[in-house]
């Protein structure tokens, strides 16, 4: 399960809960995240986030501060260390402090909740992630999104915009994928209001109930979608569109949920897809080699469809070309995929 040695593999579902939660809290621009535990718990996460963020063209170091528990803290309890760190961080006046617990502090039984409930002059939000005790990466991610959704202000009436929920901040094509969703929505005359959680500030988080529609990044975020639906009555779509058929189905689904006429948008999108495929006519009948990651991508039906459409063949003997691990988002995702294949064929 963990044979993720290739650069293109950026899925991290087997990681620690902390990593999952940090991939969300680090997306809040004016937040500082305090990791209550040993230095190492924060360090390897900072490195990971920093590396991925740099790859995405945003080289800022994520604002993560560990309480730096040592054996002394483990023996005598780390509550005082947490309080001291919170005081020091609060002095810098961030918009919000998120606090994540680690397996160490949950094992020794620190009462982080009561430490966090004191007044530090800035909002302090506890996310009891609990390291391995809390589950894995996706549990941390869900827990962070759910907790943040809990901060939302009540809304009188749904607004005009659409909210995007749970983008994979630790992936390599986050912006490309978002742009594609934005484009599809625009073809229906819709706009994205809030990216929950990416490029936002603490105050924006409170607007999470204000959208007309929530679009989850992927189906595993259903608990957050359900929670928001229950609280604000906002309908949700459970995933970003995958591949060509996924894109048109997405337009139709948005149309149904928001009572919009989607036929014209769907027709135009199909037209666009035909033109796009036609522009790759030179690939027709080509033979590819596989690498393990390519192989994963080929298991994805939308990718298979495109291969059939262009009559592409697979030859398993040669050294392979690498592909994105997660399924390509939208028509644009397929186009990027075909570009890569073309480069491979011409190399």
């Amino acid at each position, binding site marked *: 399960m963990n044979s993720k040695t290739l650069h293109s593999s950026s899925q991290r579902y087997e990681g620690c809960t902390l990593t999952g939660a940090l991939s969300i809290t680090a997306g809040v621009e004016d937040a500082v995240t305090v990791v209550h535990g040993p230095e190492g718990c924060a360090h390897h996460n900072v490195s990971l986030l920093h590396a991925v963020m740099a790859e995405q063209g945003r080289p800022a170091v994520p604002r993560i501060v560990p309480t730096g528990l040592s*054996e*002394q*803290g*483990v*023996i*005598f*309890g*780390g*509550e005082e260390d947490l309080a001291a760190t919170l005081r020091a961080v609060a002095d810098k006046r961030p918009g919000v402090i998120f606090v994540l617990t680690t397996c160490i502090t949950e*094992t*020794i*039984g*620190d009462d982080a909740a009561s430490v966090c409930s004191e007044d530090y002059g800035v909002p302090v939000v506890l996310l009891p992630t609990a390291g391995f005790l809390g589950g894995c990466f996706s549990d941390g991610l869900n827990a962070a999104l759910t907790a943040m959704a809990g901060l939302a202000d009540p809304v009188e009436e749904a607004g005009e915009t659409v909210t995007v929920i749970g983008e994979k901040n630790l992936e390599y094509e986050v912006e490309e994928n978002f742009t594609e969703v934005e484009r599809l929505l625009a073809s229906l005359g819709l706009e994205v209001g809030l990216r929950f959680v990416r490029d936002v500030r603490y105050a924006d988080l409170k607007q999470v109930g204000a959208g007309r529609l929530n679009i989850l990044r992927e189906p595993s975020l259903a608990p957050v979608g359900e929670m928001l639906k229950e609280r604000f009555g906002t309908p949700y779509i459970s995933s970003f569109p995958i591949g060509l058929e996924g894109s048109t189905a997405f337009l139709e689904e948005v149309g149904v949920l928001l009572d919009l006429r989607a036929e014209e948008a769907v027709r135009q999108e199909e037209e666009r897809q035909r033109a796009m495929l036609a522009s790759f006519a030179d690939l027709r009948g080509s033979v590819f080699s596989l690498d393990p990651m390519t192989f994963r991508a080929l298991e994805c039906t939308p990718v298979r469809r495109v291969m059939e459409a262009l009559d592409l063949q697979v030859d398993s003997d040669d050294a392979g070309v690498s592909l994105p691990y997660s399924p390509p988002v939208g028509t644009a995702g397929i186009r990027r995929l075909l570009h890569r294949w073309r480069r491979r064929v011409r190399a």
Partner: protein
Amino acid sequence: MKQIALYGKGGIGKSTTSANLSAALGARGLDVLQIGCDPKRDSTRMLMNGAWIPTVLDLVREKGEDGVSIDEVVREGFAGVRCVEAGGPEPGIGCAGRGIIATFRLLERLGALHGDVIVYDVLGDVVCGGFAMPMREGYAEEVYLVTSGELMSLYAANNIAKAVARLAKRSKQTCSLAGVICNAKNMAGEEELVREFAQRINSEMVAYIPRSRTVQLAEVHKQTVMEYAPDSEQAAVYRELAGRVLTNDRTSTPTPLEMDELEDLALQFAEI
């Protein structure tokens, strides 16, 4: 060097037994180190004439691990017995077991773990990895179970026997059961019961310590029995225990009882 550990239920008299045993060994001219491994830190008090010596963990808390010197943690008490208290976190926070582990590492680093006999006086209700440390890491080679004839203290002793049996299965076996000490409550049939219990778990009762007022009197005077009443019968009992411990070379892997076996046994000897 002989390294022994006394384990048993809280309140059963481990510290009194340990302190008097150490005193008796010290009186023979042996170099003895007693380490109290209980956050309550009252193991060595009677050897120190009632003084609470600073604990290793308190010093670590104040000065950090590197700031602690051997003279601060090892204090000389009655009969030349060198006394150490591990101490622990305040109740309800942190990890006391981890504290024991840290204490041992520190004592080792300071070069404190030497002498003819080291007596580890370990709180016995809790045998998590931390409190099993003396047995686990080869500090204590011989384990003595201190118990009375009361069911709950037999139950605790049996549990510790389980820990010893489990540790005996490790690749590097370092500890084994050396015997059962009956610290009597003066119940009818108590001596027989404890002797039988010891045999059933594949061991032996190495001492029967009768309940005696001398112990309470010594305590009021903040002394061990060995110091307060060296000529008393009770002092003779501890001297005998010391002799027995020194010459004891019979150790075994215990065969702990099931709960209902233990209850049946207690019932058999109980006064009805």
